């Protein structure tokens, strides 16, 4: 009895991929993708002790890099490509990771556990991680192929936009989501005339509560950006290069350059074609595993169950890409699931830092803590039972960090407690009741 106990206490987890008979199980892992989620999965696998073959297949022609600065510091030229990249140039090789930046996967053969790549190579896998991310949604209207109409997701697109901005006096931005508003802020800083066209009644309609939308509309207006809500776009006019945006009501807005930011589409086709279940992205369980037990999907390409909110959704964020990369690696290695974070997001526009924790859908109370006029406040989004579903923190990192704990604990606070700034933020978790 003692011996049996002793055997199970041996750090089994450390003997990676070896089963009870001493046979190696996982020796070959292929990661389809070379972005945030792919990089995290690779990092977590190696740090978790995986020493087998690890191949990453990318299609952008450069080593993995982070996207958020593409609409912020990189677009403004305050940081360069080298600082965007996740690792130094030789650090992939040093870690024995076969990084192929120009050889994307084109098909998965699940039965034989093989992946075919663009170059014609066929790779075997024991475990496969799909981290293909997403692509921009293109606007389907007349004139959408004119030069000067930009989208923003990749480094190449950021470089193109940068060039266009340098040669323009005015920009029209279609779509007032995070990307659109961040580019609006940068374009204003560069001295361009900026117009933002948004089909919904308010900016950030999909991702923020009305009070935050109002704040950002005021913020941009105070910087001279012209925001036009409830406006659709019916087309673009120009010879070979865009010269104007045509609205649904017929009005024309002059534009030297256009940026379209109207959302993303998950790159789940390669999974669907292989017979993996996909419903708005690739369906995964709590361990980032797909309907095929040897295949995982991480990041923008996947949809997952978010236990904290009892909802299945695509969680478009850096946090999600990182978390799922860690989940997949831990599951492959037979290790404990890492502690989960609440969904969280951030956006930098002008000198305003927005940090969000949680998901506000279903909130019926929006309580302000702090001073909106001083650009330093947080909005707590509560349900009918006073449970804190989400917090939007504007230049209020304390409320963001404490907020994460409150959201994670499904904590309840009264509107009076939240708005009372004489109660130190640090104290709020102690006052909170659990849901």
């Amino acid at each position, binding site marked *: 009895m003692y011996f049996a106990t002793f055997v199970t206490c041996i750090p089994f987890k450390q003997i990676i991929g070896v089963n009870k008979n001493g046979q190696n199980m996982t020796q070959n892992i292929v990661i389809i993708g070379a972005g945030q989620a792919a990089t995290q999965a690779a990092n977590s696998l190696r740090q978790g002790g995986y020493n087998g073959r690890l191949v990453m297949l990318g299609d952008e022609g450069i080593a993995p890099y982070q996207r958020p600065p593409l609409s912020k510091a990189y677009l403004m030229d305050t940081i360069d490509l080298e600082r965007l990249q996740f690792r130094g140039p030789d650090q992939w090789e040093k870690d024995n990771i076969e990084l192929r930046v120009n050889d994307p996967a084109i098909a998965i053969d699940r039965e034989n556990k093989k992946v075919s790549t663009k170059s014609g190579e066929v790779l075997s896998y024991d475990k496969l991680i799909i981290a293909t991310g997403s692509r921009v949604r293109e606007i389907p209207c007349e004139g959408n192929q004119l030069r000067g109409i930009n989208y923003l997701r990749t480094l190449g697109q950021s470089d193109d936009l940068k060039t266009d901005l340098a040669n323009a006096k005015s920009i029209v931005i279609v779509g007032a989501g995070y990307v659109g508003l961040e580019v609006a802020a940068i374009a204003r800083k560069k001295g361009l005339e900026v117009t933002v066209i948004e089909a919904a009644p308010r900016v950030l309609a999909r991702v923020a509560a009305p009070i935050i939308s109002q704040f950002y509309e005021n913020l941009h207006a105070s910087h001279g950006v012209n925001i036009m809500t409830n406006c659709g776009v019916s087309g673009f006019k120009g010879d070979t290069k865009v010269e104007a945006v045509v609205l649904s009501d017929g009005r024309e807005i002059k534009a030297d350059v256009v940026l379209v930011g109207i959302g993303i589409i998950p790159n789940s086709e390669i999974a669907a074609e292989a017979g993996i279940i996909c419903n708005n992205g690739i369906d995964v369980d709590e361990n980032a595993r797909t309907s095929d037990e040897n295949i995982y999907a991480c990041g923008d390409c996947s949809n997952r169950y978010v236990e904290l909110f009892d909802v299945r959704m695509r969680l478009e964020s850096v946090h999600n890409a990182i978390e799922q990369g860690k989940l997949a690696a831990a599951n492959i290695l037979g290790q404990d699931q890492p502690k989960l974070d609440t969904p969280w997001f951030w956006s930098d526009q002008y000198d305003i830092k927005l940090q969000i924790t949680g998901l506000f859908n279903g909130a019926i109370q929006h309580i302000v803590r702090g001073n909106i006029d001083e650009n330093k406040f947080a909005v707590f989004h509560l349900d009918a039972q006073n449970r804190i579903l989400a917090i939007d923190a504007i230049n209020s990192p304390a409320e963001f*960090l404490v907020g994460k704990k409150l959201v994670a604990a499904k904590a309840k606070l009264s509107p009076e407690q939240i708005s009372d700034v004489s109660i130190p933020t640090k104290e709020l978790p102690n006052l909170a009741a659990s849901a």
Partner: protein
Amino acid sequence: MAKITFIEHNGKEHIVDANGGNIMEAAVKNNIPGIDADCGGACACATCHVYVDDAWLDKVNPVGTMEESMLDFAEGVSPNSRLSCQLAVNEAVDGIVVRIPASQG
């Protein structure tokens, strides 16, 4: 050029050379475990938290308001805590030693 020594929570040492940027970047680019840097250096997440060895506390650039607020509420914070994405790499920190916390919260 600055030499930076990172000491993991388990005592393992890593010495890297960095050329500009910040200390978080030096860690991430050299694949030093324990510094998560989820927001990539935007001072938005507090997962790049390090402990600066006492001898170096006054050699690093002073703490800014945003960083100070974030630090106040991060995990396992002590008087020599800093967010490494806010620590510039320059000659003044050549030889610096920083310790990595057991977890980034």
